[in-house]
């Protein structure tokens, strides 16, 4: 909820820098290459600002936490700088990295992995380290330049009330947290309120091994990692491994049809131990299945993605959570280029949850959310873009049930 002066100043500087009298022609237009071509460095900088219209304030923050990725970070307010690098160690090995700075905080290694191509001419790669997500379609399009709107699809950003380090003692406790994923708390495990998990977390990448093969018709990848889809990790917290797979079919140049699956334990060892019960945390898993499609032609592009996820939780108390908790997220988005420099885009999102039965009533275990985002973008130059969107959020629960937001973003990449 805090808004710092640093990002505001940076945003203002960027906007002023884009005045017509200073057409950023001197900015780098491509990646920097040095070390005899072995090192390639690229980057992306974005600044985003949003206003929500509420009864108290004409330009308030996202008071419903619809767009937060944790308690302090809104995806619609802040600055982000990614410095990406590819170092060619040999003809078969590359090291790839992404150092990310968000809102002026400490740089974090968003990605750091080795890419090994055993046979130079065969499109088969092994990636080891903090690797890109295997699951889903949007998961690898989270850079601002790849997202033609400003917000994220709900499946990849919206925080459910589930936590890896804290467990609801019973169904009533879980129902009390409906619509409060941004600051969720349960009685078993870590009792400090903290953010919940999205279905698929794209704000951190997981750590492990990934294999990928490409043919003329199919792209396929499989991975084994330490975390889970909603909780990617660097260090393991439950002695379990997530396995994930994805296959994408390219029947024609403009059409991609993909399917993804993942399964991995998500409950941390500490959560079970703190509850005083002996839990084999490997039994409590998140399982997800996703389908996606993309079709583009001429000046339009349409994408569709649906993800279903199930979490199994230990049945600690009554009324129990014996059945897996389900969630289904669907999103459809489209973009149309009106002019070489202008485009319009829209996304419709829906996130629903399965029903559980508490002591007094039955309800979905988290509050269903619907989001519509419409907007457009303008290219000042090839790698300098302005975006503006309007977002309408509704939620069947929680303190704030409806929220409208307007957002602007400036983005530069090289």
């Amino acid at each position, binding site marked *: 909820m805090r808004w710092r002066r640093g990002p505001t100043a940076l945003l203002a500087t960027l906007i002023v820098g884009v005045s017509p009298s200073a057409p950023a022609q001197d900015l780098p237009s491509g990646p920097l290459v040095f070390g005899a071509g072995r090192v390639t460095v690229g980057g992306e900088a974005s600044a985003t600002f949003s206003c929500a219209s509420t009864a108290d304030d004409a330009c308030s923050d996202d008071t419903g936490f619809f767009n937060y990725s944790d308690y302090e970070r809104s995806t619609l307010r802040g600055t982000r700088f990614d410095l990406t690098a590819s170092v060619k160690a040999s003809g078969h090995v590359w090291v790839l990295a992404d150092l990310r700075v968000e809102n002026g905080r400490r740089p974090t290694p968003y990605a750091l992995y080795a890419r090994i191509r055993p046979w130079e001419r065969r499109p088969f790669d092994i990636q080891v380290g903090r690797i890109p997500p295997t699951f889903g379609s949007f998961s690898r399009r989270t850079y601002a330049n790849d997202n033609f709107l400003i917000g994220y699809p709900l499946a990849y950003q919206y925080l459910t009330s589930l936590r890896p380090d804290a467990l609801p003692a019973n169904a009533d406790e879980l129902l009390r947290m409906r619509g409060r994923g941004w600051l969720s708390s349960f009685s078993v495990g870590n009792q400090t309120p903290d953010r919940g998990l999205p279905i698929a977390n794209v704000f951190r990448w997981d750590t492990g091994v990934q294999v990928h093969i490409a043919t003329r018709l199919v792209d396929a990848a499989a991975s084994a990692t330490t975390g889970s889809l909603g909780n990617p990790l660097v260090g393991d917290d439950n002695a379990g491994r997530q396995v994930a797979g*994805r296959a994408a079919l390219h029947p024609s140049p403009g059409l991609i049809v993909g399917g993804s699956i993942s399964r991995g334990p998500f409950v941390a060892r500490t959560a079970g131990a703190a509850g005083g019960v002996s839990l084999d945390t490997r039994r409590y898993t998140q399982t997800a299945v996703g389908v996606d499609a993309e079709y583009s032609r001429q000046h339009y592009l349409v994408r569709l993605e649906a993800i279903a996820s199930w979490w199994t939780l230990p049945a600690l108390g009554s009324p129990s959570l014996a059945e897996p908790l389900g969630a289904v997220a669907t999103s459809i988005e489209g973009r149309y280029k009106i002019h*070489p420099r202008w485009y319009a885009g829209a996304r419709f999102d829906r996130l629903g949850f399965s029903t559980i039965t508490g002591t007094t009533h039955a309800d979905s275990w988290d509050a269903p959310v619907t989001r519509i985002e419409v907007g457009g973008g303008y290219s000042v130059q090839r790698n300098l873009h302005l975006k503006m969107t309007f977002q309408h959020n509704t939620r069947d629960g929680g303190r704030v049930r409806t929220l409208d937001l307007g957002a602007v973003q400036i983005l530069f990449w090289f």
Partner: protein
Amino acid sequence: MRRLAILGLGVLVPLHVGGTVSPREWLQPAAYAIAPLPAAGTARAAGFIPRHPARRSAGEQGRGGLATGVRPGVVRGRVDLRRPPVLPDRRPNVPQLGAPAAPGVTDLVRSVVYLETAPRGAFDQNDPARAVLDQRNETFVPHVLAITTGTTVDFPNSDRIYHNVFSFSKTRTFDLGRYAAGRSKSVRFDRPGIVRVFCEIHSHMNAFILVFNHPFFALTDREGRYRIENVPPGSYTVVAWNEGIASASRSVVVPEGGTTEIDFVLR
């Protein structure tokens, strides 16, 4: 008095009936209406008579366009690149599941040499010409295309994947959208200038289209040699260009039926 009369003509006549082109005018077509007077000894004085070929470089046009008995000259030479230009590499593809296919080889050593000022008749309306900028192995082929105004450029897609050709250049802004292998779209270039062409899907793909409103230019071969033919006798300035860098103007005198040699060093 004669000089004044010619000056008046040079100031008032619109571009298509005469005038010379300086590099500034290249980029600012509005300046053509006040195009400077051709220097003594330029095409008009040498008896250049407009003709109407397709808009190709003078070397490709053959020997037309001169009054009977006036033999054109040749400007030739070599452009040496001190340091070979480096192609902007593909951005680090960190979020990808594997290494992308290697793009084709881009020919960066070819330069363009052109007359900075051109004879009056060079601006006469010509028949429309066509040129091709192919998209092959995630590369624009050729990397540099030099054409005259009025030329229509075809952009066929010879890859199995989509491309999306676009340009934000002031000379010509366009976006061809996505189209599949075997399909082609076209753009007509009516204003002189430099057009940078990109692919929206593959950020490493780029090309240059240099649009001239006269045919006196030539692309160098891989050894840097060039040859501008059918140049009416007269005094000119010549410029060499490579990957966005232009040399200083060099003055040359092209004698009737003679050859003038001039070399450049760039970068």
